């Protein structure tokens, strides 16, 4: 690798890092907004809220689409879901976090990525 290439790569890495941090911030803000909407008593995610078909039926359309896509994918990032639904990644991230707060999904961080899934024992 030439000296010029090394120098050119660094700003790119910095920009990538800034983007990841902004995405994390964005996710946290979405959760805070959601929690505020629900009031303090609902701060903890609901422990028992199985994502069965009747629950899917009763959801608003935008959340149903996200939840169904995740059911099909099993375990996925907001990016994976966005590719399927053809909606923006940030939009899907918001909906997925909303579903986590409602107790329907679980969220795990692996390195820099956040993975969402239906409760593991319920994935078949």
């Amino acid at each position, binding site marked *: 690798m030439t000296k010029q290439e090394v120098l050119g790569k660094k700003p790119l890495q910095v920009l990538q890092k800034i983007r990841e941090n902004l995405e994390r911030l964005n996710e946290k803000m979405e959760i805070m907004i959601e929690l505020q909407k629900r009031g303090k008593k609902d701060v903890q995610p609901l422990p028992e809220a199985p994502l*069965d*078909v*009747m629950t*899917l*039926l009763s959801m608003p359309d935008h959340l*149903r689409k996200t939840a*169904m896509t995740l059911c099909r994918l099993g375990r996925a990032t907001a990016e994976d879901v966005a590719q399927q639904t053809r909606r923006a990644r940030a939009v899907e991230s918001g909906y997925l976090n909303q579903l986590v707060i409602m107790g329907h999904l679980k969220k795990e961080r692996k390195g820099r990525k956040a993975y969402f899934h239906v409760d593991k*024992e*319920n*994935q078949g």
Partner: protein
Amino acid sequence: MIWLGKIIAVHSYKGGTGKTLISVNFAATLVKQGKKICLLDLDFRAPSLATIFKIEKADYWLNDYLNGTCEIDKVLIDSSERIGNAGKLFVGLANPTTEAIRDMSAKDRKWEMRALGRLLALRNSLLNDKGFDYLIFDTSPGLQYSSINAIVSADVVIVATTFDRSDVEGTKRMLRELYDLFEKKTEVVVNKVLYDVSMKSGKDEVQTRIEGIHKVPVLGIIPCFCDVSRAEGTFIFAQEKPNHPFTKILDEMAKNLDNITA
């Protein structure tokens, strides 16, 4: 283009509209065309396929697969010889004993959610890994967990309906409040229609009428055939009567299905 197998759920609002008749004969027709088909009995409240395929005892049932006590390959029974055609037919049976029916109707939401996960997993295990062309789900009528799970897992829903007034109204509601919400591709098959099969105009009239009522495409119109009723479900019509008008209609439906799912 690579062909990816598809999942078809055959559903209806009311019982007795011909779901099982359509599922079984549709499967036989597709096998006749050289396809590899898996027909699954998801009507756990009134299982029928064990009787139709004359299988008295199975080592494993679909009930066991959904309970998570066995894998799907243990459940599938190779019935290709029974059909004796170019393709392959595997069937998965629902346990018809009263005890099993009672057990399945007492499942809770969490179990139903796991069952949905296991149905969704069939796309990988059967379509992708085992190379089936179609999985056909024969479901229970109406809004029941097992049927909605099947609908959610399917690519296309075939709705069997009749001109019975309450069936028409119920089907209309289901199209609006169930299939549309899950964004499912839906096709209607109208069964037990009273018109002369030799008169094309009668069929066109029925098709226009149905499309006007339900606002979805019509996959097939099946007249009321006394021969089909007379068979009393003792044999598979599309297999044993290849030149009967009923079989010809099924042939046409199978051809159209390929275009719909392509």
